[in-house]
């Protein structure tokens, strides 16, 4: 993972120092089982369910586009892509567990797009069966391949320019996306040992993944911190430092800034235990923090809101902003605001929770 180091060092040294056993000098560590349960049941699972539902809607919109490609059906499919993107980006504050281990993340969100082979498949006479598409590399499927085809490499897609093979490829790829989102949602809720049970049983005898509730709380906090790091020091910094639009993720749809803001919302959801778009509410870390330091809770919420606002203040699209000097101060300000959030997570928030 990308890491801004000085923060992390202060961060993990102290809590562990005092966590040698229960009853250490600063208390027993985190023990609020409801927060851990609600994180799974009210945040992670509903977010993945929303992703799966929206992927199905995207698939339907793409099927409609393929059947009757015109400006209306194209716009509807593009909008459905944007709507599906949102819960995925809002899940990137908790990229632990099956999403990475079972390859759902790369299957859905590989970047960059394998344009040469995509073009070659479309130019070929290969039959685009579900099995054929399933066997293609993930760089020719998933969000960014759909984005590339729906929006066009220069963000100027005209529906009638889409060839029959491209439409068929789109439809096959959107169907394949649904199999991935369905599998991801199921990984937390079904099977021999749903990951929900692994996480919620933190601290139970035999739980090797999360030997304590404190370990589960750390996992939540590290995920929150990690996505801030990724946004400030990866997703923004990599293309901005190089001033290279080719490095910008979600560049075809001009959706990069929305991606970043939704990443910050994933932090908010992990913190509050609520996912507004899914209509769920739970007991979050915020309640734990408020009990010990209400001012910290208020400050952290303000920092989150400021970071989302700072991202929104970057002139769109992001792929142009990184080569437009007048936009640089806004980009730098957004990075700083996100780093502020991360600093608070790694420092004060971690202390307060544990």
């Amino acid at each position, binding site marked *: 993972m990308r890491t801004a180091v000085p923060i992390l060092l202060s961060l993990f040294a102290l809590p562990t120092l005092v966590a040698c*056993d229960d009853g250490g000098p600063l208390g027993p560590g985190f023990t609020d089982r409801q927060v851990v349960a609600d994180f799974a049941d009210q945040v992670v699972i509903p977010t993945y369910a929303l992703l799966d539902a929206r992927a199905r809607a995207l698939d339907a919109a793409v099927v409609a586009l393929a059947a009757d490609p015109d400006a209306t059906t194209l716009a509807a499919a593009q909008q459905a892509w944007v709507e599906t993107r949102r819960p995925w980006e809002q899940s990137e504050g908790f990229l632990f567990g099956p999403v990475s281990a079972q390859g759902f993340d790369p299957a859905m969100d590989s970047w960059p797009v*394998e344009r*040469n082979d995509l073009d070659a498949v479309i130019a070929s006479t290969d039959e685009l069966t579900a099995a054929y598409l399933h*066997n293609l*590399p993930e*760089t020719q499927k998933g969000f960014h391949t759909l984005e590339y085809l729906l929006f066009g490499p220069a963000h100027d897609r005209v529906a009638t320019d889409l060839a029959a093979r491209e439409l068929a490829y789109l439809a096959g790829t959107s169907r394949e996306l649904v199999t991935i989102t369905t599998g991801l949602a199921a990984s937390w809720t079904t099977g021999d040992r749903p990951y929900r049970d692994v996480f919620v049983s933190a601290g139970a005898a035999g739980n*090797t993944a999360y030997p304590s509730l404190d370990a589960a709380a750390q996992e939540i906090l590290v995920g929150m911190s*990690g996505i801030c790091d990724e946004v400030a*020091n*990866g997703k923004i910094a990599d293309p901005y430092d190089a001033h290279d639009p080719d490095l910008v993720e979600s560049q075809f749809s001009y959706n990069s800034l929305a991606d970043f803001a939704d990443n910050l919302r994933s932090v908010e959801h992990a913190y509050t235990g609520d996912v507004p778009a899914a209509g769920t509410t739970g007991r979050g870390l915020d309640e734990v923090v408020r009990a010990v330091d209400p001012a910290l809770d208020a400050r952290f919420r303000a920092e989150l809101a400021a970071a989302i606002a700072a991202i929104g203040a970057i002139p769109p699209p992001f792929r142009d902003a990184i080569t437009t000097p007048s936009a640089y101060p806004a980009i730098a300000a957004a990075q700083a605001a996100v780093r502020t959030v991360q600093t608070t997570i790694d420092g004060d928030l971690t202390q307060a929770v544990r």
Partner: protein
Amino acid sequence: MIARVAALALGLAACGDAGAVLAGGDTTVFDRTSNAYALPAPGLDDAALALHLAGDASFEATFVRGPAPVNAGLGPLYNHNACAACHGRDGRGLPQFGGAASQALVRVSLAHGEPELPGAPVPVPGLGGQLQDHGVFGVPPEIAIELTWIDEPGRYGDGAEFWLRRPRLILRRPDGALLPADVLRSFRQAPAVFGLGLLEAIPDDDLRAAADPDDRDGDGISGRVNLVWDVDAGAVRIGRFGHKAGNPTLVQQAAAAYANDMGVTSRRFGGEVEVTDDVIAAAAHYTATLGVPARAPGDVAAGEALFAALGCDACHTATQRSGDHAIAALAHQTFAPYTDLLLHDLGAGLADDRPEFAADGREWRTPPLWGLGLAPTVLPGASYLHDGRARTVAEAILWHGGEAEPARERFRTASVAQRTALLRFLAAL
């Protein structure tokens, strides 16, 4: 009680005797989450940290065939398209094949013939030294791999039943023919990649001193250094990295992985420069400078004592010390990898019957055990040993044979309480 106070006073994450040596010395990180393997070592200077972060991006980069604006060079044949795709979160992979979820590979060679590097396995004509089960568009994968498991029962000394599973690979060429029987094969899952700079920094002399190829001390444990070809030195060196210690340096290990695993060639392997020496150096530096997670809190002294009493530490050497290293933070550290980096005969049950330089078909390099307890946190469903056949650490122990058979038998016949204590210790690593 006094020991504990002293440890706290030193500012170490020490609990009881356990923390006398921190897992990674001064490069230890204090994190027991799924992110624990992915943190930079503390103490890196600005330049080392900057290169680490550059290497982090390289390690995560997804390659495409190209020509392409970024990350061109994949294939034409490959196993996967990013380092991190198999070493997810810088940890191990799963023993599975097919599409995005593929995280393992099969090495091949012939028993006789001319190697490409002195002493190296003999490549198979048309296939090379590794089977690539993916190809770019228009290039059929050179192999289709079907993996099934065969269950085998066993019993602990107290009568309790256990089941082990053994892998069975069916390897088919594009024309449907089975891979010829005379092709030697070795099925391997991706290992974790943190803490590797410390292992690189253990002086050669220390490894040689620990080796006992003829078992002169009569303890039943031999231990040999692998002697492999160093492409940069143009000479034989001690092997350290890989399941059979087939690579002498992290740079060579990384360059070979780019070429063999992703089809991304470079000056050292393949000739055409699809990835520069600088990028390979950054990726190698990244793995060299990933910190080592500290042991989990809690008292596991009983299990730690059993680890020694059962003889596990005869190969899984608890403590090592690094010598000089170009990365200052890695030099002169005392750390606890639980490996001697030597080759040991693990018996017929684990044998791949495929030699690799000086390692014979029954020998494997002792894998480090640091961070072992975090494996299921980092990778749900994580499995153990070179091919992931062990679904639990207990199964991994029960597979030990050869030189390790006496230790395995002491574990198998130990009481439930003792076995549990040992496993608790290992889970705290």
